[in-house]
């Protein structure tokens, strides 16, 4: 660690992982509800569990991104963070707001939560992923502004590397596009059209810049490859991400009201969306092959390569499978969408956060050459367990989606099964998904345990 202010990243990483555990627990509960519909009812109805599952995901990833930025920006800028105090305050504000919101979801009926948070003054609630009370959304904006300001000031006074510039562009985009969450007209079509300006322009737009910047940073550190080479790759990857992803948003506009030209525009551009992810795989492997030194933190390199591969599979391949309009006509809103969502979010975003944590946490804990050997071995086991089980979850959901399409969507009216009857037939696939979910949870426990083992080893960096 070059600068003491990088330490502010630590609570962000720790809290991110705590929320991650919560996310998985609620995921397991929902998986059980797919098998036995009344599981936990009426205490935790499915809609509540789902809201908690997805919101925890978003919030822990944001904590992860913030931790990543607080760690890497001072180092890249060659200067201390502009205000470590502001970073600490916004951590507590964000954490408190996050916990309060989740408790609100769990403790009172949603309509009551809307009432007590005065949603009627500026109604923004009740839309997928944007379920947070308006007051929480305002809190998120304030935290993001404080965060972007802090990171921006640090970059302004320091070295403006490509990684820094790409990261700050992504972060500003994240903050700006979130503002669309406050636009909620009574016209559902307009609501949906601009809802995607938050959701798509985050995950298939500016978040890819953040992903690219973090990955490039970690690769520079663990391989020692010349910055010039890595920066060139980074530009190529994010250029392709934006070129394909911006108009690629059209794949969300097929069936919600906008006109016909989105069918082919969306198809063409979103068919290109796997390209930047493929380039990222090439880039990561090429750079690791050309490495100038053997970093003792081997598992960080594994995460870096893994996130490139899994993002390519989840966002690239599983996205492409159902992105063309004639295909999407049958797959839209099926379990195939859920399959893609799981692998893409895990591969691209959960894994990039674990990549930076795997690299940075040991340093923050005074282990510049990585964790002790036993800890790394356990972390590698966790890596493979989580990756393989997530692929298992994805395959199970893909099979469920294919079954759903065959039974419910493809047959003509009269011959098609109803939604509920179809779901009953898919239960075997949901069992497979749940079992892989449990394996994933084992991997997660192993991952968390890896932070606590090996203290008695002879330190690798001694």
């Amino acid at each position, binding site marked *: 660690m070059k600068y003491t202010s990088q330490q502010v990243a630590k609570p962000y990483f720790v809290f991110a992982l705590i929320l991650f555990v919560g996310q998985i627990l609620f995921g397991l509960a929902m998986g059980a509800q797919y098998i036995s519909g009344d599981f936990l009812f009426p205490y935790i109805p499915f809609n509540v569990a789902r809201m908690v599952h997805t919101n925890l995901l978003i919030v822990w990833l944001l904590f992860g991104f913030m931790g990543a930025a607080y760690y890497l920006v001072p180092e890249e800028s060659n200067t201390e963070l502009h205000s470590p105090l502001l970073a600490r305050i916004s951590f507590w504000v964000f954490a408190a707001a996050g916990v309060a919101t989740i408790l609100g979801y769990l403790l009172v009926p949603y309509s009551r939560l*809307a009432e007590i948070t005065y949603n009627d003054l500026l109604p923004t609630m009740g839309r997928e992923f944007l379920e947070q009370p308006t007051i929480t959304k305002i809190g998120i904006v304030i935290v993001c502004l404080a965060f972007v300001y802090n990171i921006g000031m640090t970059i302004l006074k320091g070295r403006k590397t*490509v990684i820094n510039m790409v990261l700050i562009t992504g972060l500003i985009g994240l903050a700006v596009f979130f503002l669309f969450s406050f636009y909620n007209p009574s016209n*559902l079509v307009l609501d949906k059209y601009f809802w995607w300006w938050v959701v798509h322009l985050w995950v298939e737009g500016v978040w890819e810049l953040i992903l690219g910047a973090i990955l490039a940073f970690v690769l520079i550190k663990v391989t020692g490859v010349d910055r010039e080479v890595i920066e060139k790759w980074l530009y190529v990857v994010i250029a392709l991400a934006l070129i394909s992803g911006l108009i690629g948003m059209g794949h969300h506009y097929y069936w919600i009201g906008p006109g016909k030209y989105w069918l082919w525009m969306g198809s063409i551009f979103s068919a290109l969306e796997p390209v930047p992810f493929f380039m990222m795989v090439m880039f990561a492997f090429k750079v690791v092959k050309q490495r100038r030194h053997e970093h003792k933190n081997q598992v960080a390199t594994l995460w870096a390569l893994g996130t490139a591969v899994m993002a390519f599979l989840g966002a690239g391949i599983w996205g492409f499978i159902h992105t063309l309009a004639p295909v999407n006509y049958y797959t*839209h809103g099926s379990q195939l969408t859920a399959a893609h969502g799981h692998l893409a979010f895990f591969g691209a975003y959960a894994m990039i956060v674990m990549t930076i944590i795997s690299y940075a946490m040991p340093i923050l804990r005074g282990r510049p050459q990585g964790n002790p050997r036993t800890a790394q071995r356990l972390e590698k086991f966790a890596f493979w367990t989580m990756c393989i089980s997530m692929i298992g979850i994805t395959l199970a959901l893909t099979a469920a989606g294919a079954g759903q399409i065959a039974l419910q*969507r493809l047959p*003509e009216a009269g011959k098609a099964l*109803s939604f509920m009857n179809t779901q009953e037939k898919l239960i075997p696939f949901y069992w497979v998904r749940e079992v892989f979910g449990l394996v994933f949870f084992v991997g997660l426990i192993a991952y968390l345990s890896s932070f606590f083992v090996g203290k008695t080893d002879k330190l690798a960096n001694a």
Partner: protein
Amino acid sequence: MAEQFTKSMARNIYYGGGFFFFLLLIGLTVDTMLDLPKRDHRENITIAVAQGKKHWEDNNCIGCHSLLGEGAYFAPELGNVFQRRGGGDEETFKQFLISWMGVQPLPIPGRRKMPQFHLSKQEINELAEFLIWTSRINNNDWPPNIEG
């Protein structure tokens, strides 16, 4: 990557490409906004439809159902529920919705459960108005069949 492909070329593609395609997105959005009134029939968004959307949101319906294919995939698609459960007749659909929501949660063990939301008759009527309006959006004929 080939040596003649320099970092500054890559940078220019990023800034130029990103900027160009963002402008294109804005342009297409303006065009779509001009086109949408013909497709969403916003002239039919009455106070009841708007209130119905509010009830839809206040009870987090999207947490289980999908609407025009978006949302959760735990409960049936509701963009065409007006046709599926009301046969395209407004009165039939409203009557159906009032009785259906009244009997939730269905006492069938193991079946997925819809909570009881305690909506008034008027609120359910507004919800129905919203779903009827939604079913008439020109959305390129999705879903493929009545089952959603």
